[in-house]
């Protein structure tokens, strides 16, 4: 039954690891702003169409 020592030690080590990860995550500042990222993720990647405007402006510059 002394396997219980090993099991509990492992479980505590895992728990300590998670506590460490939590504190590290908080310290990095990623929880300081919990609103903006939720909006940001909804923006679509813009479709990069070969855009007329851009070409035009380059031409204008060359003139």
């Amino acid at each position, binding site marked *: *039954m002394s396997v*219980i*020592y090993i099991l*509990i030690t492992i*479980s*505590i080590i895992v*728990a*300590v690891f*998670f*506590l460490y990860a*939590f*504190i590290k995550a*908080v*310290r990095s*500042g990623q*929880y*300081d*702003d*919990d*609103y*903006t990222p939720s*909006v*940001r993720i*909804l*923006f679509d990647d*813009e479709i990069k169409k070969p*855009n007329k*405007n*851009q070409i035009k*402006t380059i031409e204008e510059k060359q003139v």
Partner: protein
Amino acid sequence: MDTENCFHCGNEISKKDEIFFDEKSFCCNGCKTVYEIFSQNDLTCYYDFQAAPGATPQDIQGKYDFLDNEDIVTKLLEFQEDTTHIVSLYIPHIHCSSCIWILENLQKLQSGIVTSQVNFPEKKVRVTFQPEQTSLKKIVELLSSIGYEPYISLENFDNGKKDIDRSLIYKIGVAFFCFGNIMLLSFPEYFEVEEYWINEYRGFFRWLIFGISLPSFFYSASGYYVSAYKSVKSGLLNIDIPIALGIVVMFVRSTVDIVFDYGQGFFDSMTGLIFFMLLGKLFQQKTYAFLSFERDYKSYFPIAITKVLADGSETSVQVYDIQKGDRLLIRNQELIPVDGILISENAYIDYSFVTGEAVAIEKKSGDKIFAGGKQMGKIIEMEVLFSVSQSYLTQLWSNDVFQKKVEVKHKTVTDKISRYFTPALLGLAFFSFLYWIFIDTNTAFNVFTAILIVACPCALALTAPFTLGNVLRILGKRKFYLKNATVIEQLAQVDTLVFDKTGTITTNKKTAITYEGIPLNEHELKLLNNALRGSNHPLSRRLYDFIPAQKKINPTHFEEIIGKGIFAEIEGNTIKLGSSQFLKTMTENTHKKTKVHVEINGVYKGSYVFNNQYREGLEQLFFQLAKKYDLVILSGDNDGERKILEKMLPESTILVFNQRPEEKLHYIEKLQNQGKNVMMIGDGLNDSGALAQSNIGISISENVNVFSPACDGILDASQFSKIGFFMRYSKNAMKTIYMSFALSLAYNVVGLSFAVTGNLSPLVAAIIMPLSTITIVSFVTIMTNIYARTDRSRPVP
């Protein structure tokens, strides 16, 4: 497509200004330009996320020239290296997802910007850029040109970066780690008390639990020991004393238990208690990151100002570097940072910021002008008399009276209760101990610790934070932002309400002018306009601004009769403007309105009415409040409106006029000396002393993102008529707290009686402990929501 409102900013379009572009209509050229910029750069997605998200760009010509100054830029930058600069800018206009989108795509509008990231709750954008390709000034100008003008003030300049305090989160993390693991490790002993298996490993489990409880006991709960120590030292008994005592006693008792093998101790309850109490603290710590409650003149002042050198060239200097004798240029809408003498011919200075009076005052060359005024109109030049720190406004601010924090510190309801609770508890424990020690020493120690542990004011410490935290959130949703939870308790105790007049019970918006009578044609308007031009009377100036610009004609004859009106002759027409007595044609004479009557060529045409706009619902609000509170109106203006206000408001309302900022403060002080709990509601800097002195200072604001004086709460002006509801709601919140106190007391009595008779098994105790916490927390949350809802269904009176 809605033709009524501007495609860019959503404002109503007045027909004559409407501009069509790209099949969309805009209210002004500014909005159209922003749209053009976006469409040229393929950024019209901006309008997809939210309809009409923009703001009209303001004219910023020359305003940010000070950003050419290296020293100033260096101080504003967050990070500076040869190839990378980072700056955080506060932009009050950030309000929707479109804003986030456009601000995070800044690199498409200007090369040199590497990335930009928005922090929405703080309304800040953090821009990384390459200094070789662009500059801070260019970025700020770009932002302003697309309607996102950043706010840069002296405050940014002084205290660079603020550190964020995250210690409470760490403490909660540690407390939860300890709590969770201890609960898990305690289970074997809850279920199987006398089996071989558990007997074998009992010691191991107990010492492990002891070890895990240490971080929670020493780190997470440390705040309570500090607070308890401080309160003992200052001779005040607060709620943290019994809490700290309870925790320490639990810890010592449990340690003794496992050392002498009496039992498993109470580490599970102890860590659970610490975790829940910290959670309550977090709940209460709701802050409005985008609002600032501690503002002083620094947040209003510009960082730099244009100085004219001896050779006539212009340069920008930091406000702190301004010296006596310097010559400064003040542009339209710029704040005058120091006292000085006007050199330009004349100036119109709006002192609303200092006095609350919205009408601009005219100054002539050689007049003294004071810091805090805002120049309206063309650029003026002034000579400095005092440096910033010696100017009237800053002196006023540094004045002791204004600085004085109210010393009579508010006692929270929990503090008040614990004043009786703590001695009673200690007395009870001590006397029971004395009683038992003669009978049985062992029982004596048991009883002593049992009383301290069971009576540990867990519920007391939890109900207030959870109730008030929830109320804070509900009020915030209704645009009433309070600085912290104690303000709610104070709100419930208020018995006197003091209102400022200008800007508080009246709106700050420009006094609306309406015309009554026979419509005037173009020619008549032209005559009127030219007659007004020569007059310096405040009403004339306002009317002159109101009438559309006309061709300039010089009057052949012009006469101004002070206190009556104007008589002018233009191109053979005679024009008479002024009071009803002056025109001698009027019969009606109401006090309610300020009027300017018009007579052209001897024919009475009509009158321009200047409405002083009181806020909507003012009368109802005052009548509603008058039943329960003493009401006072404290105004910096003259008593010109006394009669109107007397007619409009309940008789019991006290009206006080001609109050300078210091006098307002003393008036509040006088009321407090009479034993009143005063709430001051004001807006301008002129109220700041009174707001600081009063028990609660509420600042009212048309736009909560712009700047209000230091206060305990900020109320959105649109919610003004709901003050009555807010007052009632705060009282209901306190009622909820008392009810849950009674509930938790019942829990304690039941639990204590079981514990004393020895009928409380560890398992039952372990279930009841979190259960009681959960019932109390859900009880207060539900009650506060119910109170908020019942008041919503009632039509706002």
